[in-house]
């Protein structure tokens, strides 16, 4: 297991390098150089910001040298200072945003699994029944809903018309005066809509996946054996079939990390949540390049870590994967 972990970590290095090259390349897509772009788009930030940019990215050096110097600082987690606000270090800004986004995404994943697995199992076990057909159509409908539109609709319904849930921010204005338990409830109430909206498409996608994975497993001989020896159907489905059918779901969970993090831009903007997505969006609008670059690199690293966790979870859950690792 340790050997596997080391191998996986080593394998991440070229991918990480590639991510930094692509991120760096993106910055150089701008016509001309970014200082002229910056000043022409945002006349308020003049000479000072311009000079800061030249220094931050060593724009007077040849491009490969620029990349090398930038990479050297990125490796030390130094993404420079933000152009806006109090010119705080990008890393400090990111550090206070990451927990918020992670909390929402993890809660969304839990919700996805909690809802999608039962839907997928019921659909597969009762394949082609009325229940299965209804669920299939519902899932297709849910999967196609644009997330930001759903967010707007739910905001109007629960926030404006019914007044059940807060529609903006993470805490109420009187948060400080609440007791610890009330604070927790207040926080949770603010998270309900963003979490439901970010989980929505995932629930639809995962339930289809669980369904087809279950259908594949149910056809296998060992399931026939389990039935033949007279095990109750519940045991066959939940103990024998589901556990194998969920293995590919672990991989899918890892693969869905970038989508969830990407979606946070939209939901955090709509619900006014101070996470990484909102930071990215505001940085783009204010042409705050160090923040844009820092966020891009950090989200990619988080995605890689998510994939790594999924791989380790799979190795933990599936002895065949572990054995395959030992022999390779």
């Amino acid at each position: 297991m340790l050997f596997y972990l080391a191998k996986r970590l080593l394998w991440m290095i070229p991918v990480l390098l590639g991510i930094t090259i692509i991120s760096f390349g993106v910055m150089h897509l701008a016509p001309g150089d970014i200082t002229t772009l910056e000043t022409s788009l945002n006349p308020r930030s003049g000479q000072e910001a311009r000079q800061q940019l030249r220094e931050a990215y060593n724009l007077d050096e040849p491009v490969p040298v620029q990349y090398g110097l930038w990479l050297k600082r990125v490796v030390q987690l130094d993404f420079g200072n933000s152009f806006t606000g109090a010119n705080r270090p990008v890393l400090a800004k990111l550090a206070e945003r990451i927990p918020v986004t992670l909390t929402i995404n993890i809660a969304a994943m839990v919700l996805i699994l909690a809802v999608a697995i039962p839907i997928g199992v019921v659909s597969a076990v009762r394949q082609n029944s009325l229940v299965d057909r209804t669920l299939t159509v519902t899932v297709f409908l849910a999967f196609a809903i644009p997330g930001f539109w759903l967010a707007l609709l739910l905001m109007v319904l629960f926030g404006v018309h019914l007044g059940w849930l807060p529609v903006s921010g993470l805490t109420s204005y009187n948060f400080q005066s609440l007791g610890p338990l009330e604070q927790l409830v207040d926080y949770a109430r603010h998270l309900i809509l963003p979490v439901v909206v970010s989980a929505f498409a995932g629930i639809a996608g995962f339930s289809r996946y669980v369904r087809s994975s279950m259908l594949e497993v149910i056809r296998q001989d060992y399931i026939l054996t389990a039935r033949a020896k007279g095990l109750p159907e519940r045991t066959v489905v939940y103990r024998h079939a589901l556990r194998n059918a969920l293995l590919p779901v672990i991989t899918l969970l890892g693969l869905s990390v970038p989508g969830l993090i990407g979606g946070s831009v939209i939901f955090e903007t709509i619900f006014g949540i101070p996470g990484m997505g909102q930071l990215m969006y505001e940085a783009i609008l204010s042409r705050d390049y160090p923040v844009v670059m820092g966020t891009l690199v950090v989200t990619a690293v988080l995605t890689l870590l998510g994939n790594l966790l999924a791989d380790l979870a799979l190795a933990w859950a599936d002895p065949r994967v572990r054995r395959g690792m030992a022999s390779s």
Partner: protein
Amino acid sequence: MSPSVRRLLRNPLAVAGAVIVGTMAALAVLAPVIAPYDPYATNVDAILNPPSAEHWMGTDRLGRDVLTRILFGARVSLSVGFVAVGIATVIGILLGSLAGFYGRWVDSVMMRLVDIMLAIPTFFLVLAVIAFLEPNIVNVMAVIGLTSWMGVTRLVRGELLSLRQREYVLAARALGASDARLIGVHLLPNGFAPVLVAAVLGVAEAILVESALSFLGLGVQPPFASWGNILTAGKDHIEFAWWLSLYPGLAIWITVLGFNLFGEGLRDAIDPRQDTD
């Protein structure tokens, strides 16, 4: 009729998807002919009017007809969807063929490239690129296309890897066929079906991304109409002008649903082993 086409026609969901896609495409093409108004004509006497006999879907805050703008928005959504997927498919086929046909280090390099692209949250990458370029329809098409080729690359690579040592390929090679001919004539046609499925589903994805970008103000810019930017305006008036938010959202929903149903139907029709329906 080939068995796959027959299977497709027997699947009511797939047929519904095809009908939706066809209708949307027809509406988009015919928009200038069938739209009741000029999409850019403002009208101070009809500001934020609710749906009525003159304006079936109401008017926006400049008095423009929402139905007309949604019809013109269909042109944006569908052309972004098709062009972006076209770009992604071409890149995917090229890289996938090289990786699958040559194997070895070519394959390793290509697959690392795929890993790298898959690790970067695409939406962040798209946003970052748009931040450095100008947000307009051409850039949106290019950026979505350039960030969504990984799936097709993997499909084509897998197909070629499994086929390249088949006897018929070896025979063609022995007869002196060039690499390009082996790939283009003997190998790629086998991967046509799965790539088509991926492309149809990819259009749905691209339409969602475009509408989200335009909604955030980083995609198609006003006065040009796109479903996403009509919704942005709708958000500002959502408490009383519900029609500005409802109809463009429905348009996106129905269109994406159509492409998804059609794509999944195609998959089932092509690959009867799966029998997921």
